[in-house]
């Protein structure tokens, strides 16, 4: 089962003691604040988890896979995530019960 905002809010209710409405609002704003920083062109570093880095991509040639027609892929800014050492080590140690 995937972790969703609803479960995060439930835990804030249980562990931090926020009421249900506060907990739901907190989780929403948590991701809003991160997104707004990225929108402002700011990288986000969450120690113990990882970094959200922005990268500027130049225009490059692409193709419509259906028609084979060549169309340029426009220049754009993208978000990449780099997991921190701690998270990488923990995930790697999870020997994996098959692919999810």
């Amino acid at each position, binding site marked *: 089962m995937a972790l*969703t905002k609803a479960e995060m809010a439930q835990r804030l209710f249980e562990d931090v003691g*926020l009421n249900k409405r506060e907990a739901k609002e907190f*989780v929403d704003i948590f991701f809003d*604040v991160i*997104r707004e920083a990225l929108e*402002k062109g700011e990288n986000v570093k969450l*120690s113990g*988890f990882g970094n959200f880095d922005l990268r500027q991509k130049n225009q490059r040639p692409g193709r419509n896979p259906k028609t084979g027609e060549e169309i340029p892929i426009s220049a754009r800014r993208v978000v990449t995530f780099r997991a921190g050492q701690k998270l990488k080590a923990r*995930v790697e140690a999870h020997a994996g019960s098959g692919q*999810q």
Partner: protein
Amino acid sequence: MTKSELILGLSERQAHLAQPDVELAVKSIIDQMADSLSGGSRIEVRGFGSFSLHFRPPRLGRNPKTGSVVALSGKYVPHFKPGKELRERVNAAARAGKPLKT
């Protein structure tokens, strides 16, 4: 933006919450996300993105110091796929000429 700046930002917007509660809540969310991925479970946040694990198959590597061949076992690595809204908003900001802050 660092974790402490995120905590500050949240405190400003959730002024009714005590600062220690905000810190605890931020820590709780980040811990839950790390625990989820460590347990092999995806994270899905609509509008923001999803985190999943990608498998890296076993391969032969080399010890860069000695040059000897070493067998490396397969492993999982965290992967983030930005959601549509995040992708569009970040790119729209770039088009509007907002520079990257480094």
